[in-house]
C-alpha cells in the first residue's frame, strides 16, 4: 500500500471518524473501534472512502472488519483498485 493511500485514509478518518484519539498518532494496525470509531461513523467513513478513491465497496466488504484499522481499509482499497493487497 502506498504512503499516499494511507495519507488519504487518515484524512478521511480525521474528517468523518469522530475518533477520541488523534488520527496522526494511530499506527496502521491500531484498532479504530478501540480508538472511538462508532458504528454510525464507520458508515460515514465507508462512504467518504468510496468518494476519495472513486470505488464502490461490494456488499461482502461492508463489514466491521474491513474498517477496523487503517491497514485493513488500505487493503480493501487496494483490492478494489486491482493493486496487490500487501506491500
Amino acid at each position, binding site marked *: 500500500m502506498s504512503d499516499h493511500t494511507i495519507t488519504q485514509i487518515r484524512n478521511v478518518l480525521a474528517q468523518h471518524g469522530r475518533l477520541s484519539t488523534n488520527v496522526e498518532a494511530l499506527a496502521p494496525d491500531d484498532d479504530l473501534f478501540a480508538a472511538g470509531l*462508532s*458504528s*454510525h461513523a*464507520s*458508515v460515514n467513513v*465507508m*462512504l467518504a472512502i468510496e468518494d476519495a478513491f472513486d470505488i464502490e465497496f461490494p*456488499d461482502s466488504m*461492508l*463489514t*466491521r472488519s474491513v474498517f477496523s484499522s487503517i491497514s485493513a481499509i488500505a487493503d480493501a482499497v487496494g483490492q478494489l483498485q486491482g493493486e496487490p493487497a500487501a506491500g
Partner: protein
Amino acid sequence: MSPEVRQASADQAEFLAALIEAGLLLESGVPGVYGHSDTFEEIRERLAERLSAEASSRGAERLRFPPVLPRRQLESSGYLASFPHLAGSVYSFEGDEADARVQADRAAAHEDWSEFQHPTELTMMPAACYPVYPAIARRGRLPAGGVFVDAGGAWVFRHEPSHDPMRRQIFHQHELVRIAEPDAVLEWRDEWANRGLELLRGFGLAAELDVANDPFFGRRGRMLARNQQAERLKLELLVPIAGPEPTACASFNHHRDHFGSNYGIELSDGSTAHTACLGFGHERIVLGLLRTHGFDPATWPAAVRAELWPDR
C-alpha cells in the same frame, strides 16, 4: 405513487381473515391499520398494566407523550439517515380560498391534492422512546444511579403497509428506557431481556431470545445492521405466531452514547450518559396469545389467565 404492500404468507392471511371474521380486528381499508374489539383491548390493557407494574416495582418513573414528534427532533436524531423508508411526516394545508376549493374538488375525485400540503412542525412518532431523551436532558445532570422511565404503550408509526396481521403501520410500543452509567445500562438491558423472556413464557408463548438488527435502509444500512449484530446491540424475543418466520414481540436495544451525546445527557460526574431501551409490541403479544390459546380468553389456561388477570 402507492407504496408496495408486503404480501402475507398463506398462514398469515388465514389468521388475519379469522381475526376480522371474529370481530377482534376492525378493518380500516388500509393494510396494517386496524381497530380493536372490546376483547382485544381488554387483553392489551391487562398486558400494559402488567408491564408497567413490572417496571414500577423496580423504580420506574412514568412519562407519557402524544404520538407526534417535533420535526426538529426527528431531523437531529439521525432517523432519516437510518430509516427514511419508515418515517412519516404530518403535512397540512397552506393556501387561499381558491386553493382550498381546488384541493377539496381534487380530493373528492380522489385525484392528487398534495401540491397544497406543506410540512408542519410535527412528524409521526417513530419509536416511543424518542421524546424521553430530550425531556431527561432538559433536567440537567442525572442523579447518581441515573433514571429509569416507563414511557407506556404509546402509538408509533412505521410506513410499511402489509397484509401480515403482525406488521402494523401504527401500533402500541411499550417502551422502558434506562439512562445511566455504561455498565449499569448494559446490565439493565440484559436483565430485562431475560425478564421479558420469562414473562412471555409465563403467558404460554414459545418465546426465544436472539440477536437481531434494525431494518436500516440501503447500503449504509446493511453495514449498520452487520455492526449491530456483531456488537449484540439489539436482542429480540421471537414468538411463532403465523409462519413461516417467528415474530419479534419485544426488543432490547443498547444505544451506547448515541442518544446521550446527541441530546447532551450528562451523568452526575459530567460524562456522557449511555442509554438502552426496550420495547414490547402490545398488538403482537396479544396476537400471539390469541393464536396460541384461542380467540376466547375465558377458555385460556388458568396459569395464563392468572398472569394477566391476577385479581380474578
